[in-house]
């Protein structure tokens, strides 16, 4: 019995040593030991080797998919006749016909993937829905991958994530004892950054930030597209934000209470959230004092699958102040980060995420925007949305994300219709009632 305690104690000491020296200290200084980068490179190499060697014929499927985007294909179908632009041509149906036949003959996980990505299976069964027994070698490699992911990576990641979160709770609780001063703010930022970076390591997240000069400033509002709760960790790795949300009970409630001790996050009671005016007033109060951290808001109100941006709720844009848009795009090769809350609850989602290969994400900071004269909140919201969609390479949909729970498939069809209508109607600069504030200068 004593031996068991001794062993547990040693393991714990070893773990603490590793975490403090290899993870926490670099995280505090914003440095990276480069382990995750090397891991990602090795992973990419392995996936390349698998897909280009021998099994290419089997893995690539029955048909060869060539062709570019819908726009390119339509252009070619119309024989590059400029007078055909902005109108329907009978040849347009041929594009959809061919795409449809391709889908019937061969499964496609989503139509967002290019043919190149589709040909390379990333060894996660969840992305290959018709897992045929293709070859013994591939199955062995896949089995090895399962072992590595579930038995090596998962425990490590869970331990790391729990360490990160518990240190966040403890750290912010301790910092909360200090009197209000710049020292406290500095310390609070340090604690937040360090712990979020530890959590990011716990997901093997590689984040590329672009245009850091546009980073959200104090007294502003940061607005981003929402794919997963992990977005918060991704953004908080590079800066400190004041979170907005509902107070919860349980573990999350403990986290919220201690976080608000060290820096002013904005937590609402459930009853308060229903009253739009209360919410707006409190947020306005927050940004009026220009010294407080920028507020982080996800105006879509729900998680979206990261191929398109849904309608932004205008409430966030009625507060005033400077809006700092941020576009977040996940690289699907290493694992799908999207949280489909109707399909998975939080725990199974975290399990899936922690058993993916890695999270690779691009974050673009966009120049700040202010509401113009003669523009109402809804138009401003649409303007910000199209800027974010354009930067992230996402499709700009005028569709309420709240409806998505029952209509996931409809939204995919609507994306196709939207792309097609851009080709037909876009050139005419016609404004439709739905998207009245969007201009088509970029067409």
């Amino acid at each position, binding site marked *: 019995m004593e031996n068991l305690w001794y062993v547990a104690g040693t393991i714990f000491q070893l773990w603490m040593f590793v975490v403090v020296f290899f993870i926490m200290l670099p995280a505090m200084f914003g440095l990276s030991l480069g382990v995750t980068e090397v891991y990602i490179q090795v992973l990419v190499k392995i996936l390349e080797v698998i897909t280009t060697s021998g099994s290419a014929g089997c893995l690539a499927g*029955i048909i060869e998919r060539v062709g570019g985007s819908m726009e390119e294909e339509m252009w070619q179908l119309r024989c590059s006749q400029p007078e055909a632009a902005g109108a329907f041509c009978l*040849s347009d149906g*041929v594009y959809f*016909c061919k795409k*449809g036949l391709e*889908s*019937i003959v061969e499964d496609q996980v989503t139509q967002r993937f290019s043919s190149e990505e589709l040909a390379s299976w990333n060894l996660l069964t969840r992305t290959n829905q018709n897992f045929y027994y293709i070859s013994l070698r591939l199955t062995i490699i896949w089995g090895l991958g399962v072992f590595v992911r579930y038995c090596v990576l998962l425990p490590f990641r869970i331990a790391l994530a729990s360490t990160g979160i518990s240190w966040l709770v403890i750290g912010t609780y301790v910092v909360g004892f200090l009197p209000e001063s710049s020292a406290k703010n500095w310390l609070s930022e340090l604690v937040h950054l360090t712990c979020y970076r530890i959590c990011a390591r716990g997901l093997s997240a590689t984040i590329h930030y672009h245009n850091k000069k546009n980073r959200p400033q104090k007294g502003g509002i940061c607005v981003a597209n929402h794919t997963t709760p992990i977005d918060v960790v991704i953004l908080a790795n590079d800066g400190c934000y004041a979170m907005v949300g509902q107070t919860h009970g349980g573990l999350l409630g403990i986290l919220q209470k201690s976080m608000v001790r060290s820096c002013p996050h904005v937590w609402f009671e459930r009853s308060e959230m229903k009253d739009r005016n209360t919410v707006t007033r409190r947020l306005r109060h927050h940004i009026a004092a220009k010294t407080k951290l920028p507020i982080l808001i996800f105006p879509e109100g729900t998680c979206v699958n990261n191929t398109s941006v849904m309608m932004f709720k205008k409430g966030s844009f009625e507060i005033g102040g400077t809006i700092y848009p941020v576009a977040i795009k996940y690289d699907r090769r290493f694992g799908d980060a999207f949280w489909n809350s109707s399909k998975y609850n939080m725990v199974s989602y975290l399990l899936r995420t922690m058993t993916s290969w890695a999270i690779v994400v691009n974050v673009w900071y966009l120049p700040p925007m202010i509401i113009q004269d003669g523009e109402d909140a809804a138009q401003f919201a649409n303007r910000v949305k199209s800027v974010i969609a354009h930067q992230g390479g996402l499709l700009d949909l005028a569709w309420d994300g709240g409806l998505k729970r029952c209509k996931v498939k409809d939204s995919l069809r609507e994306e196709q219709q939207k792309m097609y209508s851009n080709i037909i109607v876009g050139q005419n600069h016609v404004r439709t009632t*739905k998207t009245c504030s969007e201009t088509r200068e970029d067409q």
Partner: protein
Amino acid sequence: MGSSRSSLRRVPDGQQLLQETGFSAAVLLRLHQRFQFLDKDSRGHLRSEDLEAELSENPMGDRIVGAFFQPGQETVDFPSFVRVLAHFRPTEKNRTRGGEQPEPANSRNRKLKFAFQLYDRDRDGKISRTELLQQVLREMLGLQVTEEQLQSIAERAIQEADLDRDHAICFDEFRKSLEKVNIDHKMSVRFLE
């Protein structure tokens, strides 16, 4: 690939389909596997729901599914499935045929006919203005355009293609309107060996 020929015995009408459609034995086998995958309840035939699941994102999905089913039929068996897919084989350039042989499924004319029937769902030989406006265009564009825009788009399309001024597009007018399009390339799916 010698084993393909022998496993072809499991495919219904295998030998006949080889000759009729021009698919190789290997491709026919893969298509049979695919058919069995789509046939989730292993009935030996497909219903429209099985195909619709794959085409949920395609604006013309329902029409394409409809093309697989003969009028009045609700199921499609494997030979019919393959016969439809045969339209999408790339055209062979140097194939000569005698007068008695039936036109191959993947000839330019047959491909155009297939595309025409996607628009002309009631198979009356004409794409009427109503058909184009209320069905085809509405499906392809959904709620992304207003009613007025839809009307003007349909008007313009009919004007361009309707040469004999009968307010409908018949197959010959359709073919004329697509004469410059490389149908062989755009309506072919390259099957890997």
